[in-house]
């Protein structure tokens, strides 16, 4: 087992498993942004959705046509001052925290890069990646308007880590959200769990939760982004956990057939195009053993969402770096799982909320 010296790098220590920003002013700035998001965005979500929907309903009555493109929707709903204010506030706060976090960690860019390089060679666990990997276009967008997204900045995963802390508004501190999902992740019906993999693992929060849940299993975290798996490994070493990370597109995994007992994806599918979702489902079925289980944690399908939520979702897609989310919520992913050959344990929305979408690979 290796030991990474972090005191000289992280002079302000950790907040849970997340490195603190490098000075108090940056932390205070992000505290403000986090609180402002809770008060000025999340608390107004339903109100703004209703206002926008009312405007769209009125236009539909007057013209007999309900707009469905983001540009047409924007032209209508932004006439309502509170709606325009909400989206201005949202975009500004979103861009603000990414910029401030990157600036803060950027004060020690070289030192962080050195720490990641040292961690590449250390255990527990391991990381593999290809420095020459060429990303498909869909994996290069600025997801959530984070500059460089998940693949384009060497310290992007570190920035993402603190950014998600703000995004969840305190609801996911110390990885509590991800670990609760890991705790609830369904096991195969025969109870045998020797190998587990999270695809699209980003910074490894869920993979670490799975390792804690299944300490005797071989736990893998794979992600298309090299910055993600490298940082996930560094972060996992801090926790003393043995997780194996690898840069792999989830639709093209370097594993043999029938290899895993559990494959899970947490908040991955709404960030990728539907054709890729179909390929991933086929690949997950291939690498799962008969009786193995695929567990999908992600947004609800449009059929289980209100109209107001759909309008807000469209705006999120176009203005918050979520271009694939509408495709996902409208694709009926439960049907796609069945088409891929999984047998769903439940179709009940309440149950899906509690357990995620759980599909068994038939024996």
């Amino acid at each position, binding site marked *: 087992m290796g030991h990474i010296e972090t005191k000289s790098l992280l002079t302000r220590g950790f907040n849970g498993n997340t490195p603190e920003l490098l000075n108090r002013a940056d932390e*205070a700035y992000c505290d403000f942004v986090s609180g402002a998001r809770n008060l000025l965005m999340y608390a107004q979500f339903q109100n703004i959705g209703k206002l926008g929907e009312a405007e769209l309903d009125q236009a539909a009555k007057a013209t007999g046509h309900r707009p469905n493109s983001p540009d047409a929707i924007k032209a209508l709903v932004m006439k309502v001052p509170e709606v325009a204010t909400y989206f201005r506030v949202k975009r*500004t706060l979103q861009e603000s925290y990414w910029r401030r976090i990157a600036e803060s960690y950027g004060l020690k860019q070289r030192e962080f890069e050195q720490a990641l390089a040292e961690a590449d060679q250390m255990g527990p666990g391991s990381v593999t990646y290809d420095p020459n990997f060429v990303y498909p276009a869909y994996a290069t967008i600025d997801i959530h308007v984070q500059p460089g997204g998940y693949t384009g900045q060497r310290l992007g995963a570190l920035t993402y880590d603190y950014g998600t802390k703000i995004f969840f508004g305190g609801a996911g501190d110390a990885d509590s959200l991800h670990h609760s999902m890991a705790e609830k992740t369904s096991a195969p019906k025969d109870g045998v769990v020797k190998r587990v993999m999270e695809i699209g693992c980003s910074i490894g929060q869920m993979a670490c939760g799975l390792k804690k849940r299944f300490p005797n299993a071989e736990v893998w975290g794979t992600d298309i982004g090299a910055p993600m798996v490298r940082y996930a490994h560094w972060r996992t070493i801090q926790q003393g956990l043995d997780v194996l990370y690898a840069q792999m597109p989830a639709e093209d995994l370097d594993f043999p057939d029938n290899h895993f007992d559990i494959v899970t994806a947490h908040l991955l599918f709404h960030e990728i195009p539907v054709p890729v979702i179909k390929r991933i489902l086929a690949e997950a079925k291939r690498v799962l053993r008969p009786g193995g289980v695929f567990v999908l944690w*992600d947004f609800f399908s449009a059929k289980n969402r209100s109209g107001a939520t759909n309008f807000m979702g469209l705006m999120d897609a176009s203005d918050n770096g979520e271009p694939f989310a509408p495709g996902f919520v409208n694709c009926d992913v439960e049907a796609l799982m069945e088409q891929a050959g999984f047998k769903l344990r439940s179709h009940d929305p309440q149950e899906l909320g509690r357990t995620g979408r759980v599909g068994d690979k038939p024996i």
Partner: protein
Amino acid sequence: MSTLTPEERAKKLSEGLDYVKDLPGFERGHPHYFKDPMIDHLLEIVLQLGAEMWIIRDRQMVTEHLLTTEGKVTPEMIEAFKPSPEFREKMKAERGTYTRRLYQSLYDGIGPGGEAAFVSGVLKVR
């Protein structure tokens, strides 16, 4: 391991996906929301000022706390300061009051709304 070159693999991974570049949101863009973009700029400035003012207020609270509990304060002590859960809650409440006071007029037409934390689609039913 894939036997394809990185370029060949990227091409394979991109098959049938040319359409994604045309999706709204694929390019980050620089959207504005008001007919007069200057209103967007002014709101941005107002939010940034609020954040920068909070930084000063945060520093003042930490300074006062350290002077009260330690009898002295240095820049290093401020940087190293780790608030207790109680002090963290006190600052959070202060921040909430401050933010409401500054920005409550933004949503005058629809009411202020209480504070709400993030609830994802995954968690909503639960």
